[in-house]
Structure formats: C-alpha cells, structure tokens
C-alpha cells in the first residue's frame, strides 16, 4: 500500500529545547495512524510541522508526494487540519464559518454549498447552522471545528486531540465520525493522550514521549514488546511513604518495574495471576495501607509504562 505521508527525521528545536527529536514514520493510504503520548510529548509540534505551519529545524516529510519544505502550497491542498483548539470565529454562524473556510480552500458556488451541506449532515448540526458559534456547547463547537477541516475532502486529515474537554456523548460521536471518514477512504493522523481512543481507532500507533518516537506498530506488535507482562495497580493511603515502599518491592519475585504515582504504585510483573498474593503481602509488609488492587492485561498503557517508566496521564 502506498504511503500518503512519509516523515523523515523531523526535528524541531526552540533554542536549547528540543520539542521533536528525529521523528520518522509513515502513514499508509487509507490508514488511521495515532500518535499516542502525554501532554507536552511533541504531538502538536509534529502536526504543526507536517501541516506546514512550522518549519522543521531539520528533516522533511512528503505528503502525497509533495515536500512540506519545498511544495507547501500543494501539501496544504491535500490535507485537512482539525486543531486541538476551537479555531472558529465566535461571532459568525456555523454556516458563515464553513463558507469562509471553504472559500479559503478554493471552493465556491454550488460545490461549496453542497459540501457545507454535506459536512453539516456528517456532524449532525444542520438545524443549528445559522446560530453563532458562541451560542454552541463545547461538544458542538468541536464538531464544527472538525467539519471545517473536512470541507475540501482532504486525502489526509490531521486531528489533534479532537476530543479534549468534551462530554462522553460528543466524544462517542466524534470517534464514530473518525471511523466513518476512514471507511470512506480518508487517511487520518490522530493524536491523543487517551489510550482507549488510540486502541479503538488505530491501525497503527506511534508512541511519542519527550519529543521522541519510542515505539511504532500495530497494537499487537506493541503489546508483544511487553511480552507476558501484566500491570498491577495498587492504590494506597495518601499518607504512605511510597518511595520507600517502592524501593522494597523492586526486585521482589518477578517484578520488573515499579512506578510511584500520586495515589499508589504500578508494578510490571510476569504472570500477575500467580504472583499477585505474594506481591500484596510484600507490599503490606513494606508499610502500605492498600485501598484497592487492579490487574491490567498488556495494553498501550502498559507499553508506555514499560518504555518510559511513567503513566500516560503523567
């Protein structure tokens, strides 16, 4: 399958700070590719470079065969961008916003009207089209924000954390919309720090942390990196001395990693089912007052934990 996007050694520096560090990946035509990482990992900077908003400090990317450095106008014509922020004019109606953004993408006349009508149907907001954006709820604004990126039928859609700060119902609708757009043939680069979204949507996932792409593959490929390891999440009393307890658990049994979190510990171990009882005993002996215990089978969160030593939500 041909690549719609090929990113080669992209880096972005701000003085001493390296926001994106030598990132390379590709997106196949018709694929949903997710960049999964915590806040500040470099997801938005990566999308900003790919969408020609930011010039890379080094590296390049080809989108639909066009370089983001030397052919950025052609790149812009074949991409759609849904920014993390609600980038709409509050004092214009949804219809006026869509017409404006459509015209910026060289749509006009009957074609523009038809596309505006179609995207309003996709996001199910036809009946509110003539209301000003400032009267919309957060979820409705998110949907218009997405619609504005779809008007020109882009081959590749960049969606930067499109579900941040919205209610579960709107979130569900957006996730279904992403899947439907992909079913219609649109390639999608989706950034998120929600593991569940990446798991539900993605054909492949790139895990990004501190500007570096630390793992890439299908979910199966990534979880295989963790092997047979499970996560055991132990919630403890907030007053417990967690660093001290963690140091006593390190190396115990088959525990390979211990992560201290705000309200407890997360342990990576093999065969949690058999090791759970001695681990709990050891934890209590180390001075912990356990409030709850959860065994998590290998997933992207586990992969991230294993690779970075931190939880995604950190």
């Amino acid at each position, binding site marked *: 399958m041909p690549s719609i996007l090929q990113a080669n050694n992209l880096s972005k520096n701000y003085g001493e700070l390296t926001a994106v560090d030598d990132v390379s990946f590709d997106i196949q035509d018709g694929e949903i590719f997710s960049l999964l990482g915590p806040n500040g990992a470099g997801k938005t900077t990566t999308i900003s470079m790919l*969408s*020609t*908003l*930011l010039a890379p400090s080094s590296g390049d990317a080809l989108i639909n065969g066009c370089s983001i450095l030397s052919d950025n*106008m052609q790149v812009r*014509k074949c991409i759609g961008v849904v920014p993390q922020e609600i*980038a709409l004019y509050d004092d*214009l109606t949804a219809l006026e916003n869509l017409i404006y953004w459509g*015209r*910026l993408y060289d749509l006009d006349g009957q074609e523009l009207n038809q596309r505006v009508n179609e995207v309003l149907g996709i996001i199910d907001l036809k009946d509110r089209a003539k209301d000003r954006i400032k009267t919309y709820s957060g979820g409705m604004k998110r949907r218009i924000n997405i619609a504005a990126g779809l008007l020109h039928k882009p081959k590749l859609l960049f969606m930067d954390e499109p579900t941040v700060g919205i209610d579960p119902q709107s979130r569900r609708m957006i996730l279904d919309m992403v899947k439907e757009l992909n079913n219609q043939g649109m390639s999608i680069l989706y950034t998120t720090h929600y593991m569940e979204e990446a798991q539900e949507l993605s054909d492949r996932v790139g895990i990004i942390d501190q500007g570096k792409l630390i793992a890439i593959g299908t979910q199966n490929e990534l979880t295989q990196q963790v092997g047979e390891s499970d996560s055991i999440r132990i919630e403890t009393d907030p007053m417990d001395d967690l660093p001290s307890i963690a140091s006593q658990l390190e190396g115990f049994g088959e525990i390979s990693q211990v992560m201290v979190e705000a309200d407890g510990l997360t342990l990576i171990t093999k065969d949690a089912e058999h090791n759970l009882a001695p681990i709990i005993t050891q934890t209590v002996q180390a001075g912990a007052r356990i409030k709850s215990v959860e065994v998590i089978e290998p997933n992207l969160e586990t992969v991230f934990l294993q690779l970075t030593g931190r939880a995604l939500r950190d």
Partner: protein
Amino acid sequence: MRKIWLIARKDLKLIIRDPMALVFYLLAPFFLTLGMAAVTGAFSSGETGLSNIPLVITNADKGELGNALVEVFQSEGSDGLVAPVLAENFDEARQLVDSGSTVAALLIPEGFSSSVMPLESVSLPENAIQLQLYTDGESTYSVGIIRSVLETFIYELDSSAASVSVSLDKLLSTGLVSPEEVPLFLNKLLPKLLGSENGVGYQLIVNDSVVEWQDVSYLALIAPGMALMFLMFNVTGGSVSFLVERRKFTLQRNLVSPTGSYQIILGKSFGIYLRGVAQVLILVLTSALLFGLNWGNWLAVLVLIAFVAYAALGWGMLLTSFFKTPSQVSSAGTTIGLLFGMLGGGFIQMTALPEWLKTIGKISPNAWGSEGFSILAAGGTLANLGGILLALLIVGTVLLILASFFFRRNVTRVGG
C-alpha cells in the same frame, strides 16, 4: 485578490457583529461629535456653537474696506456669533481686554482700504498692512473664532488685492463703480480672483506676533484632529486582531489553508484599513450633515481620508509586528494615539504647538491629515494637497515595509 477581499470582508463582518467594537470604533466618534456640538452649543445656534463673543473694534481706517470688515462681524451672516462694539482708541480697547470686559480687541489700521483701492491721492504703503488683535490669552475658542474670521478675510484679501486694486482703479476712474458700491463689489469679485500673487501683503498680528493663515470654522478646528486621533485608535485596535486571531488559533487555521501568508496579511490589513476609512467618513458626514461643518471639496476629502488611513495603517501594523501580545499593542496604541492626537490638533490647535513639536509631529498621520483638512476647509482642492498626500504615502509605505520585516517573525510564526 479574491481571498484578500474574503478575509477583509470577514473582519468587517466580525466588527459589525461585535457591539463593543462597533461602539468604540465607529459610533464613538459620532457621539464625540455630538458631544462637541453640545459643548459648543451647535444645537442651539446652528453653526459654530459659541455666541455673543465680545470684541472691541477700533476702526482707524474709516474707509470702505475697514467698514466692510466691521460689517463682517456685525452682519446677519455671523448669526450673533460675535458681539462687536466700537472704540475710538485702541489703547482703551486693550485696557478693556486686560480688565476682562472683553476677550479681544481689534485694530483696523489707517490705510487699510487704500491698500486695496489706491486712489490717485493715496500711495500704497511699503510695508504689510497689519490688523492687530489683542486677546486675553485665555478664551482660546472664542479668540480662535475671531481669528478664523480675520484670517479668512485676510486670505481672500491678500490673494486678490492686486487684481482688485487694478480693477477698482479702472472702474472707479470710469465711473462704472461708485465708492458706495465697493463693499458689494468686493464680495462678488474677491472669490473669483483668488490666486493673484502680486500686491500689498496683509498680516494678522495677535498679541504682537504675526500669525499664519489657517482654518475657518470652530468645529473645523477640532473635528479633524479628533477624527484622526480616533482613526489611530481604530487602526491600532484593528491590528491587534492579528494577535487575537493567533491566540484563538484562527490565524493558524488560515495559515494551513492553501492561502499565502501575504494574502492573509493583506486581507486583514485591508479590513483594518476599510474600517478606519469608514470611521473617519462617519465623523465627516455626520458633522457635515448635522452641524453644517464645511470640510471642503468632497473628492479631495475622500482622497485625503484614504491616504491618512493608509499612513495610520502603517503605524498599526508596525506596532502589531513589533509587540507580541494584544495588551502590549493596545497600550502602545493608546499612548501613540494620544500623542499623535496632541501633535495633530486633537486637543489643541496645532498652531499653538512649539516648532520643535510641530516638526516631530510630521511622523504622525494626524499632523499631515489636520493640515490637509485645514486646507480643504479653507477652500483648497486636491491640487493643494500634493505634498501632504506624498508625505502620507511615504509615512505609510516606510512603516509597512518596516512592519513586514517583523511580521513573519512575530505574528505569522507560531509556537507548537
């Protein structure tokens, strides 16, 4: 061009949809004009507002022209604006000013009429004929009106004197015009003879200093300066929209569309420019329609507004390109708006400024604009604005070029 207009139209629509912005940028100058009119009494007296300004005139000339000037102040045309009384002795008249009984004393010197109508028995004086105005130094507006009347009279007289002199001499000698008909003749002939460069010079002396000719009506003294000051506020405020759009991420969304950054900058600039033009036009039209203020030749007024708004846009864009946050631009814009307002006659007449301030004021669109409006209000045409329009063009262009250097770095470039 289509996208430039699209972006400009969107910005104009946003202004119309934002009640606060609409009030500040477009309606505030309108209400300011109403306020000025109310303060100066234009609603009650029809023209310039103030009335019955006390003036003591010493007519040492006693001739036709001196009498004509007295009649100007006494005539129906002044609508009771000035309440002149006559005094035989100018020193006594000055004492009345010093004692606070009147705001100004005017001396029409001997030989004033003969300088225009030299009969065979009277020779032309070698030096300029000096009308002397002695004022209390406090009644700025009242004295400003008296000065305006005198300056207009002198302007017309000065530029027409030679032609009138020759014409009158022939007409009087042939008996076609009698001495009694001279004032009427002057009223009809002077406007047609503007532009003559020869003849005796006339000067207005105010408190022993020679003053230059300047604008005509009271409202015209203040209105252009106020309009231009609000234009600066408007344009700098409009330029802030670049930074606001960046903060709201709509600028970024524009930049990732297949639209050149130059189109976005030009489009937004054009929107800011248009609303600046609209604002000044509103003030000009309302003051003309409601208060009968004479701005002069309409075509020239429109052209001048277009050029002034262009120069103001240059300042607005430079500030926006230089500063990084809307509040920084707003603060700098307010400071510069007030400063330029002062330099451009928004608070006090420009003639009252010291020379060095007038020189500094040349960097402001306000000073050039005020000068242009004064010329037009006094009957000037587009041809008289050549230097001013060129200066405004240079100011605007230089500032926009400077702004373009900073713009890509500070405005269209964004962090990730």
